[in-house]
């Protein structure tokens, strides 16, 4: 008797997910590549025929190159800042004997439960010319005029560091947790000082977490839309903002596709250089 149990034809279990990912991920991603070589249209998203013009336009435009460079710069600084800020916190959270571990873990996790629009909104309240920080500084007499904290790259970086910090702390924390305390004790009993233990044992063993965190934060910062759009306003545009606007407002699909792919390709190259430089062992998840 034939039944609907998964035992008879187990591949049926995978079928819906496979169809979904092929039809709505793989094919659309190939389609975006094709679109980037299409002729721009007049009043339509694109016209017949193929061209290299969209890529040529990026290479000849100082505006797009400037935005591309600025986006990469923001991504690199954000990644570096989250690493420097998050590393000590991750090491502390990874220790089993921490008293307030549950609470601390909840605080690190909490921003992930609050929508990204709300978190960016919080930063506009803090960083604006009449915002909490500037008002406080002016009232304390520390500055006469509001400091330029918003509508520039600095504001975008501050907000992005906040938004992506959990993505740096959590992978490093789980790498630290898997370090055998006996290794540290052994090193100390052999006369290694605190600095030596950190440099020679803890950091190398936490490296997979550091690499995962850096790549995650870098990729997320490059493709972030909400935070740069809300903090940067009309004055500072990152590539993701330009791309989304080019597609939704001016319907320049081939150009938008070329810009998005260019950003992703450069991002991927930087990730690979980083992985090679830090001798990363590739393992997903």
């Amino acid at each position, binding site marked *: 008797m034939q*039944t609907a*149990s*998964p*035992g*008879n034809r*187990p*591949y049926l*279990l*995978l079928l819906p*997910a496979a169809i*979904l*990912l092929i039809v*709505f*991920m793989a094919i*659309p991603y190939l*389609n975006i590549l094709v679109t980037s070589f299409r002729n721009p249209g007049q009043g339509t*998203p694109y016209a017949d025929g193929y061209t290299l013009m969209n890529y040529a336009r990026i290479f000849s435009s100082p505006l797009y190159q400037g935005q591309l460079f600025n986006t990469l710069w923001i991504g690199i600084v954000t990644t570096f800042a989250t690493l420097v800020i998050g590393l000590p916190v991750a090491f*502390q959270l990874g220790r089993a004997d921490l008293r307030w571990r549950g609470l601390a873990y909840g*605080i*690190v996790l909490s*921003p*992930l*439960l609050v*929508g*990204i*629009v*709300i*978190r960016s*909104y*919080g930063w*506009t*309240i*803090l960083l604006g010319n*009449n915002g*909490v920080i500037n008002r406080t500084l002016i009232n304390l007499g520390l500055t006469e005029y509001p400091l330029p904290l918003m509508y520039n790259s600095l504001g975008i970086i501050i*907000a992005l560091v*906040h938004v992506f910090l*959990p993505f740096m702390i*959590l992978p490093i924390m*789980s790498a630290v947790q898997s370090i055998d305390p006996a290794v540290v004790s052994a090193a100390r009993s052999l006369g290694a000082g*605190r600095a030596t233990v950190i440099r020679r044992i803890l950091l190398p063993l936490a490296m997979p977490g550091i690499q995962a965190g850096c790549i995650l934060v870098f990729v*997320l910062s*490059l*493709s972030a*839309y*909400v935070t740069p*759009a*809300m903090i940067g306003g009309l004055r500072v545009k990152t590539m*993701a903002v330009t*791309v*989304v606007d080019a597609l*939704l407002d001016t319907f320049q*699909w081939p150009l*938008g*596709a070329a810009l*998005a*792919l260019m950003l*992703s390709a450069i*991002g991927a190259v930087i990730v690979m250089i980083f992985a090679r430089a830090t001798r990363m062992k590739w393992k*997903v998840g």
Partner: protein
Amino acid sequence: MARQALNIYSVIIYIFLLLPIAVVVGASFNSGEFLTFPPQGFSLRWYVAFLNNEVFMRAIRTSLWIAAVAMVVSGIIGTMAAVYYVNYAARSKETIRIAMLSPLLLPEVLTAISLLFFVYAVGIGTTTMFGLLVGHVLITLPFVFMNVTSSLEGYDPDWSMAAQSLGASRWTRFRRITLPLIKPGVFSGCLFAFVISFDVFTISFMLKSIGSSTLPIQLFDYLKTNYTPEAAAVSTVSIVVTILVVIISEKVLGLRVHRF
């Protein structure tokens, strides 16, 4: 002491993490017409304004509906794939894993653009919510897959074998052994799918049809032109609801919510 310094440093970082959220909550009780600091007084007027604002209420209903659909579809498809991955996949294991996690590994903005082009190329367009729903299912799928997979990790194939030798049919074995084992993973995966879908921005932004704005989109559009604390009231309600869902799931249902 170095340990003392590290503690102080960590507390500063925790304050930094909570600060923007606290500011939004604080601003929602401002009685003034605009977001001013220091606040002008305590008032619940912006909560009243929000509850009477049909645009926001409709956005909340849309968000809840999309999150529910994405949760159910991802829950079913993701669970099936996870069961296959753990129990049946052999050589293709790593490929399946990377494919299932791909919506998480690839930039969301690129996925959103490619889906937008695709729904237009096949003639569906954004007149219906189809593209939007597909996008939400794609983004939430990895979370169901990860959670179910990790709950199946302690699965001992001997149990199934033992049941088989005692005469249990395949269906009985699936129902009585596999299903109870993966239940916590399915529940927490679905919970994650719901929470993630509720927050998804870029995909909703690019694939929204007229009248299908989700709450994050509506809030974003509102903040472009409005500076009243009403947006803070909306945000606060959204934060409280999410935190309540997670706390209830953890304490009452005993689920462990984890992402990594």
